[in-house]
């Protein structure tokens, strides 16, 4: 499946500044491996050592949190939009 992955600002240094990255894969997990291949370093920011998605990172398929779908096994369709949304804690 050909999808677009929306990269949040803190991770754009790993994508050469791109905010939207094209990716191929049938599931969220496959997409993460696919963008890691094209932009090394991304996976470590999104997943922990066991491969699970880090608790302060959220991934959305279109407008839906994948946690409420099938998590990393969530299946994708052509044209889907995958958004990565990390927590931001600054403020003072």
């Amino acid at each position, binding site marked *: 499946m050909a999808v677009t992955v*929306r990269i*949040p*600002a*803190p*991770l754009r240094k790993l994508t050469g500044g791109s*905010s939207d990255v094209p990716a191929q894969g049938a599931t969220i997990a496959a997409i993460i491996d696919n963008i890691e291949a094209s932009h090394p370093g991304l996976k470590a*920011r999104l997943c922990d050592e066991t491969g699970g998605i*880090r*608790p*302060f*990172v*959220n991934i*959305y398929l279109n*407008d*839906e*949190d994948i*946690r*409420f779908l099938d998590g990393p096994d969530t299946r994708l369709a052509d044209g889907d939009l995958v*958004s990565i*949304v*990390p*927590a*931001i*804690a*600054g*403020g*003072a």
Partner: protein
Amino acid sequence: MDFTEEQIERYSRHIILPEVGGIGQAKIRRASVFIVGAGGLGAPAAMYLAAAGIGKLGIIDDDVVDLSNLQRQVIHHTKDVGVHKAESAREKVNLMNPDVEVVTYHDRLMAHNAREIVAGYDYIIDGTDNFASKFLINDLAVLTGKPLIHGGILRFSGQVMAIRPRESACYRCIFREAPPEGTVPTCQEAGVLGVLAGVIGTIQATEVLKMILGIGRSLTNRLLTYQALDSEIREVKVKRNPDCPVCGDHPTITDLMDGEQRACAL
């Protein structure tokens, strides 16, 4: 409503709005807001809520004004360097609008003092700069049932969301726990474009005013991200997580906890 002639003039641009009117202005005057942190986000939130005629503002901060704060914390002036931030904020609010009752706390919001302090307020604004405080404030809002406006800024990005405890998604529904210390940069290391604080802190004040007035469509169940470099606003829908450790159906967090780490971004 018994506003004085002077108050009617002061708030006239509100009062002529059909969505506000005299009744709405009286609601604003009856409302109280607790602002955690008199820093980047807290400064514009406090100033606009004061200008709007909020009845009571609580401001907590354990820090003093530093010269490096003035690039974004617009409630503090150069003469205030070394002054307690909450006190400096109170001075400006009083100068701008003497109608507003300001209560200051030169303290750090912690598990042991948070419930008692927040008891006197209707709404909470998170203007803190670290995950430990943001989770503490979220849990405080859920456990006390007080609506909370979350905000965060870093580098060129900001994030904001409104939380109506047990009705809409809370911060922990979305971000379950703070990242481990050392895995993310601190705010000092990362930097921030000062004006981001104004953008996000002002949205936080706006959302509180909408809740007070009962108008518009709230920023609940919506996580808004503003990226200044691309002039881009994105929104994702979020929803309550039935498995949320604090606001879910079988909560495992039933009391407040202090965290230690002060990291502030992915």
